[in-house]
Every structure is written in C-alpha cells, then in structure tokens.
C-alpha cells in the first residue's frame, strides 16, 4: 500500500519536478492575500526570477506549514497572526519585528519589511456624517452619546473588541447592538447606524465612502502586512521583494481590494496596475475563460477522485477480505478505518502537509483514507453475510481457499462491495472540493474564489458540476452494480 501511494505521488509530482525551480508564492483564501501574492510574483519576475503562485490556500496554518516544510517560499502574512497564532507559546518578545526575528530564524523563516498598511479591526463612519460631526478618532464619538452603533457579533463578544473600545475611550453612554457583518455596511449606508466595526482594508470602505476613525489609544492589535519568506530564499529574490516594503498604504490596499472585489478585475491585473504605478512593468497572462476553467477544474477533480478511489479499492477490498477471514483482525481494521473517518477533513489535510506538502498528493491521500471505511465495511459485511451452508458446500466440494474466494465469495459479496464503492465515490466527489484549500484544484477552487469575491455565478461554476458529478457517480455505479451483479442474484 505504501509503495502504491508513493507511486501515485511520484506520478503527480512529475510535471513540476521536470521544470526549473521557480520561486513559489502562496496566498490565503481571501482577496487581499491573493493580490499581495500576485504583487510578490510580479516583483520577483521583474527581479529576473521565475515565479509561480499557489493561490487561495486554506488558512494561516496551512500556509505556515507549507512554508516551513519548503512547499512554498513565501506568502503574505500579518504580524498579529504571527504573534497570536503561529508563534503563540514561543518564548521571547514577539511584539516587535526585531524581537521575532531570532525566533523566526530558528524556525527557518524570515519576516520582510512591513508593506506599509495594517489590516486590523477599525471603526468607521460614512464620510459625510463624520465630516458633519467632526469625528476623526474613535475617542471623538464620546461627544455624540446619541449616535447608534452596530457591531458584528464577533466584535461585540471579543475582549479586545467593543468591551475594550468602550472602556478605553469612555463610550459608556453610547448604545451598541450586534448584527451580521454584511448587514452592518447596509445599515450604515441606509443611515440606520452611525458607526460600525470593519477591517481596515475592506473594499467596502472605498465603495461606501467610509471614514476609518483613528485608533489613537492603540486598542486594536497590530496586524501589519508583510511577506514571510523562507530563510534560505535566494538573497537576490529577497532584495526584489524588499522593494515592496512600505509601498502599499492602507488606502491603496483598500483601492486594490475594491478593484478586485467590486470591479471584478482579475487579481493578476490589479497587481500589474499597482506595480506599474510604482514603476515595475510586468506582463499579465490572458485571463482564463469560463470554459477553460470548467475543463481544468473538471480534469483536476476527476483526477483527485479517480486516483484516490482506485487506490482505496485496491487497499480496502483486501482489507475487508482479511477482516472477514479473521474476526479479531477484522475488529481492529474496522475500528481503525472508522477512526480515520472521524478526523475532520481540514485537520487531516493540515496534518498531511508536513509529510506530503500542498497540492494534489495530500488531497488524494486524505480522500483515499476517507474512502476506505465504506469499502472495507461493505466488503466485510458482504463476505460474512454469505449463508454458512454455501460456504460449507464450497469447502466440501474441495475448493481451496483462494478459489473459493474468487469463484464463490467475492461474486456473492460483489453487490455489497460495489455499493460501498459507490458510497465512497459520491462522498469523494463532495469532499474533493475541500482539496482547493490546499492547492489541489478541482471544483472547490471556483467555489472558494466565488465566496471570496461574493460572486454567485463563480460559486455555481464549482457547485453545479460537483453536484452533477456526484449524481453521475451515483448513477454510474448503480448501473455498474446492475451490470456486474451475477444474474442469479438479481
């Protein structure tokens, strides 16, 4: 089984291993991170490096692990995430870049200069109202106790959210209510709310014309944007990236986010426009057509499902047979594959990254592991469910073990086995969409991008084919079941 996995992984790794080593940039699954990834790619290319971008990976943990294991060379990160999540528990002074530097170095990572903005909590008001009331800072709100505030539920709850803001700025007189983040913008726009919390680089800031109030007392944690690179990255590549230091201020980042998110300009082009303004010329490739996207995601998705399912059949059927033959071993095997099933998929993917990196291999291994249970269980129950008189007849005829398995037991258990494979296939088609979180492509990718850009048509580009594929798998295996079920068993 191990050899088989290695073979599968080797085949998958072939195309990337064959080309020269480009600098690998990663980004998180939200627009700002993708834009910054594209900006980094542009800067690297301008510096004479090949660069490739693995976009929209699942989250900080996934990128951090990928960076440390050498799957990627850099990705955009925020100091607050570094301090509160990734380095949490490390000894030493984490609050400054200088303090973090030796710790990061020990981990084989390096933090480049701040890009020039922070993406942290902020409080904002519509510009005209702020102007009329002469509100510039959060503290100014104290002068207007009649204002109605609305904050996202999370902000209301968090200790460093509204409770702290209220205490530090003495806003006890103001009423605040919790609501959904998206509704807050609309409430602000409609005049129902005077101020709300936001992230300081939200695209909506530009769209609605919102004034971001200054946080003079420094209530909000520092979330300074920067590139996190591997310590062993070519110094010339580092130099090319360092040119970006301090070049993106908060309002510029808001504008870039708005360009991508609200105008639906492809991130590569948004990045190219920005780089052009700061004097770096980069070519952007042709944007992918919707058909091209469908073809590519279908191909990726099918590969994920087919390879993992095939490997699962090759492993699970023998496991099921062994489990049926030896009840004590069977109990262990069934319990083991059952336990695998209970691991949350994202956790499993994250666990696999240090071993298998990002991209298709960990996704295939995860799908493979999830596919085992239905097939093992059905093979086992199909075999142990064969009536004893039939087994004894076969033994009494003189059929040796292997022939009995081949001629009698497997054919009789076949409908059950195929039903297990069908279950695995359908589950696999759905679960494979999560592969996009670790850069494995497939239908999850347009879904992720669609969620990120709030683009329903893009979400449907992934969700509809995934649903269709699941139905096809269901129908196809049902037909196969009918075709392969021995005539006498129908």
């Amino acid at each position: 089984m191990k050899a088989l996995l290695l073979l599968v992984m080797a085949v998958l790794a072939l195309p990337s291993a064959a080309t020269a080593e480009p600098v690998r940039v990663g980004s998180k699954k939200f627009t700002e991170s993708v834009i910054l990834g594209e900006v980094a790619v542009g800067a690297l290319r301008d510096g004479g490096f090949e660069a490739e971008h693995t976009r929209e990976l699942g989250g900080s943990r996934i990128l951090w692990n990928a960076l440390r294991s050498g799957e990627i060379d850099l990705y955009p990160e925020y100091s607050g995430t570094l301090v509160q999540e990734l380095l949490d528990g490390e000894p030493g002074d984490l609050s400054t870049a200088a303090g973090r530097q030796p710790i990061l170095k020990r981990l084989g990572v390096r933090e480049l200069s701040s890009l020039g903005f922070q993406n942290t909590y902020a409080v904002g008001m519509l510009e005209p109202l702020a102007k009329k009331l002469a509100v510039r800072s959060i503290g100014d709100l104290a002068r207007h106790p009649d204002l109605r505030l609305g904050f996202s539920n999370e902000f209301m709850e968090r200790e460093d959210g509204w409770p702290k803001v209220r205490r530090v700025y003495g806003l006890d007189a103001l009423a605040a209510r919790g609501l959904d983040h998206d509704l807050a913008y609309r409430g602000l726009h409609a005049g129902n709310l005077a101020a709300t919390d936001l992230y300081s680089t939200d695209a909506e800031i530009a769209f609605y014309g919102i004034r971001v109030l200054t946080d003079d007392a420094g209530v909000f944690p520092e979330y300074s944007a920067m590139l996190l690179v591997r310590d062993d990255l070519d110094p010339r590549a580092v130099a090319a990236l360092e040119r970006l230091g301090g070049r993106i201020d908060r309002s510029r980042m808001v504008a870039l986010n708005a360009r991508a998110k609200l105008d639906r300009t492809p991130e590569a082009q948004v990045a190219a426009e920005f780089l052009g303004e700061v004097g770096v010329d980069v070519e952007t490739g042709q944007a992918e057509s919707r058909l091209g996207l469908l073809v590519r995601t279908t191909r990726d998705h099918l590969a994920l499902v087919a390879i993992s399912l095939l490997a699962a059949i090759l492993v699970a059927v023998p496991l099921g047979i062994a489990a049926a033959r030896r009840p004590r071993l069977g109990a262990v095997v069934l319990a083991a594959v059952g336990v695998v099933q209970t691991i949350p998929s994202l956790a499993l993917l994250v666990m696999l990254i240090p071993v298998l990196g990002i991209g298709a291999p960990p996704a295939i291994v995860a799908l493979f592991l999830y596919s085992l249970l239905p097939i093992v269980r059905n093979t086992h129950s199909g075999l142990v469910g064969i009536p004893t008189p039939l087994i004894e007849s076969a033994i009494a005829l003189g059929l040796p073990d292997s022939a009995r398995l081949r001629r009698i037991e497997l054919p009789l258990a076949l409908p059950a086995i195929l039903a297990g494979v069908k279950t695995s296939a359908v589950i696999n088609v759905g679960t494979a969409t999560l592969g996009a979180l670790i850069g494995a492509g497939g239908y999850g990718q347009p879904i992720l991008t669609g969620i990120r850009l709030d683009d329903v048509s893009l979400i449907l580009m992934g969700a509809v084919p995934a649903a269709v594929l699941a139905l096809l798998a269901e129908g196809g295996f049902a037909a196969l079941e009918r075709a392969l079920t021995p005539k006498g068993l129908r």
Partner: protein
Amino acid sequence: MLELCGVSVSFGTLVALQPTDLTLEPGQVTALIGPSGCGKSTLLRCVMGLVTPNTGTVALDGAPIGAAGWAAARLRMGYVIQEGGLFPHLTARGNVSLMAEHLGWEADRIADRIDSLRGLVQLPSEALDRHPGALSGGQRQRIALMRALMLDPALLLLDEPLGALDPMIRADLQRELRAIFTDLGKTVLVVTHDLTEAARLGDRIVLLRDGDIVQTGTLPDLRERPATPFVTRFVSAWDAP
C-alpha cells in the same frame, strides 16, 4: 471404506455428538435417522471436516484423515447439504462443473460427464442453463446430487436430500436414488428423519438419539429386536396409522 472412531462433538456445553463409532463398508448404503437435533448433520459435517471433533478420528480406507488430509479426502466424497446449498450466482451447469473446472478438466470431458449425470438423475436439459432461483425444489435436489457425483466420488454423504419435497416427488426420487445407489455401487451415508424413507434407501439403519447411536440394523431388526424402549416408541410412531 469410512470409519469413525470415538468421534464426539460439543458446542460449548451442548454435546451434539457423544463418542461414536461407525463403520461404512464399501458399497453399503447406511441410513442415519433420529429426531430433530439429535446430531445427524453434525456427524456428516465431521466426516466432511466441516466440524472438528473434540475427540476421535475419521479414517478413510483405514488411514485417519489429518488436518492436511482433508483437501484430498474431500475429492473422494460427494456431499449434499440439507437445503441443497447451490450457489445462486452460478447456473445449474456452473454449479455442477465448478470443481471439475477448478481441477482443469477439458470442456468436452465436463460436457460428457454432465450429460451422463443428467440422464442418471433425469433432469430436463434446459434446466441446466438456469440459475437455482429459477428451478423447482426437485430440480435443485437433482442438481445438488449431480454436483456431488461430478468427480465420481467413492463415498456419498447426503443430508436429507429429499427434505423439502412434496410426498409424490419424494416417492419418485426415493426410487431413483435407490436405483442410482445400486447402479453406481457407491458407499452412501444418507440422513433422513423419515423411517419409511430410511428403509427404502438404506441397506441398514442407524438410529441416533441425543448424539448417541441407539441401534444399528434393518427395519425388521428395529421392530422385532429393539435395543431400548425408545426404539420401540420411535418405530411405532411410524407404524401408527
């Protein structure tokens, strides 16, 4: 031909078969009879090596069958289980030829053998290409018998071969079976719970009760010289109108 020496079987605390001695002479047809649950099937399953006896040995032609000997021994024995035990996914022909195919017989030889067996058990030829689910009970029993006879075994073990059939077909098949036994000169151990059937099929009757052989002999022996009061009760239950 076949010798059971002190063979006993228990399932947990339940004693299915007391230590039993039984010898089958070549060409002899023995009918094994007794109330339900007395251990008839268990005795046959011991001979086939499907149950491992707690004590005693099973010997074929004077040589005890050891753990490694079953594979060869089974090829010399034909076994028909209580409900026929046909494989539902194979046609009747597939059921009959399964073992010969496994042993690498040529197709012609298999076809010839099946043909002659079909004549012997008087099965219509179109029944051969049907699956067991599409056959009558009598046809299934005939096919089970064909399958047991396919490799021309010296010893036949039949567990209620006519169990589930209606009385008319049953009488016909009893006659046919007896003719087959006589024609082929096989050594046969046939289980039944019907004393009339036992008398028709067997050269002698072995009466079993609670895992113990109570008496061995012909029907007149059982009637006229019963070994225990149980034998009298058992026989008179059949003699009563």
